[in-house]
């Protein structure tokens, strides 16, 4: 099975065939359209503060408003408890979500691939040690780990949060990559490379890595969703980066200032955005699963 995946990736027809399946998949289409909309939101987040400094998501305050007021022409989604514009906060939140999700996912995929290849290639004690470590980290509830760390190290900034999420989210990927590496190791072309005198590093980077990378990227979408959710939950509980306007942070403000029963225009948008962006990455991931291999479908759902 693993062999088939990597070969399908190499065949020329794969991209066209993959795109054909993808186009037929309803989930994939919905997911992609939603993601494009969110990307547009993130890009346009730079516009409102240029129009007027009062639209700055963090520091901009409408001089005539000092409390939460419903939607108006001036503020399409209303203002928060300090008179800041909710729409510009929502746009800035899209930028933060992409930033957090993609960078944390990228880092954890990088770590997971490196560790998985290394464990699979080295074998023996190293393999056992790394995989037991993976087992251990896998069962830790990441949100609570970040909570404990923030209680010890004080307010964490957004990049530290991203780093911690990545450090605790590699085991799933590394297991799959390790399995793939183990099967690759037995194949003739690796033997041939060894006989030809290639070093271990060369074998890992030139011969194994190109074969496992596609699989690693499949996991990326699922890692993006879990990173976005963890950051949002952390911010919601009041442990986010105070210098960042994320959707979780906006929900925290609604909740903590007691506006949740009074200001639906403020409570609804950030929650809908977090839910929809996770949904769209999730749907994209499932559609990609189907393109790659239907049998893989079960793996991603564990998260």
């Amino acid at each position, binding site marked *: 099975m693993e062999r088939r995946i990597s070969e399908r990736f190499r065949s020329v027809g794969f991209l066209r065939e993959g795109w054909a399946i993808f186009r037929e998949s*309803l*989930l994939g289409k919905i997911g992609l359209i939603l993601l494009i909309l969110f990307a547009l939101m993130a890009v346009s987040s730079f516009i409102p503060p240029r129009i007027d400094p009062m639209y700055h998501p963090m520091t901009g305050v409408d001089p005539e408003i000092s409390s939460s007021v419903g939607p108006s022409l001036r503020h399409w989604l209303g203002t928060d408890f300090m008179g800041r514009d909710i729409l510009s906060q929502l746009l800035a939140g899209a930028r933060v979500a992409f930033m957090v999700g993609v960078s944390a996912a990228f880092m954890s995929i990088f770590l997971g691939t490196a560790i998985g290849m290394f464990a699979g290639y080295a074998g023996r004690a190293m393999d056992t040690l790394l995989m*037991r470590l993976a*087992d*251990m980290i*896998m*069962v*830790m*509830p*990441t*949100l*609570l780990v970040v*909570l*404990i*760390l*923030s*209680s*010890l*190290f*004080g307010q964490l900034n957004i990049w530290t949060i991203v780093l911690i999420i990545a450090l605790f989210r590699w085991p799933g990927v590394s297991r799959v990559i390790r399995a793939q590496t183990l099967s690759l190791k037995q194949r003739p072309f690796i033997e041939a490379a060894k006989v030809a005198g290639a070093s271990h590093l060369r074998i890992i980077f030139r011969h194994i890595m190109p074969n496992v990378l596609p699989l690693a990227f499949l996991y990326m979408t699922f890692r993006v*969703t879990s990173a976005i*959710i*963890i950051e*949002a*939950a952390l911010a*919601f*509980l*009041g*442990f986010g980066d105070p210098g960042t306007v994320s959707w979780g942070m906006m*929900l925290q403000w*609604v*909740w903590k200032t007691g506006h*949740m*029963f009074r200001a*639906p225009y403020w*409570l609804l948008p*950030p*929650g809908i955005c*977090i*839910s929809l962006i*996770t*949904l769209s990455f*999730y*749907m994209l991931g*499932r559609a990609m699963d189907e393109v790659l291999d239907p049998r893989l*479908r*079960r793996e991603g*759902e*564990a*998260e």
Partner: protein
Amino acid sequence: MELRRYVIRRLVQIVIIFFVILTVLFMLFRLAPGDPVSRMVDPDMTPEDSERLIAELGLNRPLWIQYVVYVKNFVTGNFGHSFHYGEPVVHIIGNRLPNTILLFTTSIILSALVGVFLGKIASWHKGEKTDTFMTIGALATHTVFLPWLALILIWVFAYKLAWFPITGMISEEVWLDPDAGFVMKALDVMQHMILPLATLFLIHFGAYLLIMRSSMLETLKEDYILTARAKGLEEKVIRDRHAAPNAALPVVTSIGLSLAFSINGGALTETVFTWPGIGRELVFSVSHNDYPLAQACFLLIALVVLISNLVVDVLYAYLDPRIRY
């Protein structure tokens, strides 16, 4: 016999992993910036009391002695006193644990049962409207941001409609009333539990539905289903008696795999609904710098996750006779 050996081996592993976590936590508490003593000793204590506690914990002695004392205290169940409550941490945890177990296990069992049932139906109607509707519905409820869902449920059902209390686990007027019997009290807790339970249920059942659906589709391709059809059995019998029980096995595994995810969700739910459980206590103690309580809650949760994973694996072996360890 083999199963017993397997369980013993896993228990040994759990003990080792737990010691690693314990040690990492010990080191983190001493590596973090600031005075480690202030994390163990309540800042509100009188100087004599704090002197005594420092001596008791060995905080003025070499690190390895501190470690030995730390492990000994942990093994004997002495977690120190909570800064905020001023009570032994063990009492607080003993008090909160049943509440968490009640909410958490009810929600997991309920969502697994409903997920399996609906997943079975979705797979049976593969490609039809029912299936599309269920799959998208499951994906959507599974990816809703949990704390937000909780706030929306509170807003609609507790605030607007006033069907349920907004937060908490019990109403004081019922529990202080000397005439209120057990039934009244149980009903009161149930009324408080419905919304948090609904939140956790909505988040979880979708995942089980999707797993059951794809597992059922795989199972239906098996030879024994073909045999059953060839025997002329009714479709309903094939679905419910031959396919579903086998297809439900991966759901059991996924409960174990997604436990860490569920526990995050449990802590968020407890916090939003101020349900007096371990998860809420952890969030609360972290925001109030109540280090002894935070540490104990975290270790307890880690232990529960490790043991539950073992229970799920043993349950799996029991349910599927083909699995032998």
